[in-house]
């Protein structure tokens, strides 16, 4: 059995595709049917959850995906894992078009991509022991024949995520939130995936535990050469772990670029407003901090606004924003934003 702890770089996949991004998403669109409207129900309603989203994630890279709740972050992550039906677009994983993969090949594909859940309490089956939880992916993919044969591997994985291996015979309720999230990570890692979607993995955790789990994820990334899509709404956590960041608003990416570019020189008014909401851990500076507050409410995604989706709340919107949708343009090196005014 190959030892997890000694893997240094990600030599898997086709070797000539090293420059090629691991994950490429093009014009991803997800719409959920949301019933019918009109007196006779003649109008079919769709929730425009994700609309024309495109990005790439390179090998060993972390893309942070931020935005307020309901903006489509989670749906984007689930769509890449092919958990939600797509309405358009193309997803390429490791050089292979996976947009229409179904059935058994989809099941096999999932060996390469795993999800770390938001809620560490609900995502572990309370009736299974840690051993069974972490070994399950190995079992169903035929890596091991019986749970008992996975003990060494599970011990290794638990060690990797910083849990005492002898705890594998315990049930999830014997663990704290942070420990459970470690079990979650161990399960996601058991099949040695290349790509992990982390759906707000620390937002359900105590603030004091968050740093531990985020650092653990970073550490594991370095050791195993993993690629992350890190979904979050805590901007300081996302900044800490991400190499690049994409900002979503109402189902669209409004800005994407290198981490420091985004944080130091945001181009989109929504990103500016988001960043200005981050508190500064210094009371004096905090008192003088100027916050950009955006008025109004999040738009109804059943009937999304015309033009730029942010124009209804944008402090600097002009006439044009209401009619024409701004394209995602390169505003600086490796830094794209969708706004007419910057």
């Amino acid at each position: 059995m190959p030892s997890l702890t000694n893997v240094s770089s990600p030599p898997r996949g086709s070797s000539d595709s090293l420059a090629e991004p691991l994950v490429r998403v093009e014009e991803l669109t997800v719409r959920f049917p949301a019933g019918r409207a009109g007196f006779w129900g003649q109008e079919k309603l769709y929730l425009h959850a994700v609309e024309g989203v495109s990005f790439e994630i390179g090998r060993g890279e972390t893309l942070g995906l931020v935005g307020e709740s309901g903006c489509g972050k989670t749906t984007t992550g689930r769509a890449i894992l092919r958990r939600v039906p797509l309405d358009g677009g193309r997803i390429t994983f490791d050089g292979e078009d996976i947009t229409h993969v179904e059935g058994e090949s989809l099941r096999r594909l999932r060996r390469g991509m795993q999800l770390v859940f938001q809620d560490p309490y609900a995502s572990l089956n309370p009736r299974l022991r840690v051993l069974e939880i972490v070994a399950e992916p190995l079992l169903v993919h035929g890596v091991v024949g019986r749970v008992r044969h996975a003990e060494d591997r599970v011990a290794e994985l638990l060690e990797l995520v910083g849990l005492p291996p002898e705890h594998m015979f315990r049930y999830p309720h014997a663990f704290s939130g942070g420990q459970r999230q470690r079990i979650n990570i161990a399960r996601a890692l058991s099949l040695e995936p290349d790509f992990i979607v982390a759906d707000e993995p620390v937002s359900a955790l105590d603030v004091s535990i968050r740093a531990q789990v985020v650092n653990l994820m970073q550490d594991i990334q370095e050791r195993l050469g993993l690629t992350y899509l890190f979904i979050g709404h805590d901007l300081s956590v996302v900044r800490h772990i991400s190499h690049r960041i994409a900002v979503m608003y109402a189902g669209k990416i409004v800005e994407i670029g290198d981490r420091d570019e985004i944080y130091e020189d945001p181009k989109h008014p929504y990103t500016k407003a988001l960043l200005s909401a981050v508190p500064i851990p210094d009371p004096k500076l905090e008192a003088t901090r100027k916050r950009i507050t955006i008025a109004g409410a999040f738009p109804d995604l059943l009937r999304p606004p015309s033009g730029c989706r942010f124009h209804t709340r944008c402090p600097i919107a002009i006439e044009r924003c209401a009619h024409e949708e701004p394209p995602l343009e390169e505003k600086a090196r490796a830094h794209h934003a969708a706004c007419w005014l910057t």
Partner: protein
Amino acid sequence: MASNARSAALEAAREEELLRGRPYAVMRALRSTVTELWSDKAGMFGVFVMLVMLVIAIFAPLIAPYGPDEQSLFDRLQSPSADHLLGTDQLGRDVLSRVIYGSRVSLQVGLAVVALAGTFGVLMGLVAGYRGGRTSSFIMRWVDTQVAFPGLLLALVILSVVHPSLKAIIIVLALNGWMVYARITRGIVLSTRERPYVEAAELAGCKSRRVIFRHILPNLASPLLTLAVLEFARMVIAEAALSFLGLGTQPPAVSWGLMIAEGRDYLASAWWVITFPGVALSLTVLGANLFASWMRITADPLQRERRFARATTDPSAVAR
């Protein structure tokens, strides 16, 4: 050093794991269950009643002092005495022996109906919960229709047409009792399906059969066991009711309901004829209910842990 201590701990945990299920581990588990039971007096009473009933029903011929239909017209309606501990009825039959033999019918009907109705109901609930859509609507409307129809009436109609044998009683009662299983199963399936750990299993690559049996079905165990015990009690009463009305167990055979029906004319002069089968019936139902409420907690690892924690920190709180 640290890694040595660590691997030693792992070895210890493994060893303990290996010994699971070995005779002494089983004994230990049994002893801990008994200890647990001891701290919950109501539950203990329930378990005790159920066990006693089981033993009595199985060993009825050994325990009963007389045969259930041994008549002695000279000894009609005798009050409880050393010869007849619970007295005799209008045909001079020993009430104690008849109560003991009567438990057989109650137990048989209760268990058979629960098994039959439970299997069918759970199956229907699983199908409705998984398939959803039209299948679900069809099954659930069927359930609603049957629930809306008075159960006793349906039973009486059927039993007045066919000959009321034990088999017929069981089938009729099962026909009446499966709906509640279907409803509960479907509800639980619907809610568990959306749990993140079920999604996790699916994302890990589990096939749907594994998801169903490994991740969804165990959630049904605790509520269904509890429901089954409660339904057992209900079916014991239902059988007694049918027998009381004359459409259940037929005369040469014994049943508590039948005994109550036959004895009610002598209520004023010979209270024992009707009282003791009534007491047996009440005790059984009460025991089943207490047993069910104890089981509800014991079958659920989380609730069980809570009870254990409460018992260790505050022994007086166990009763709560």
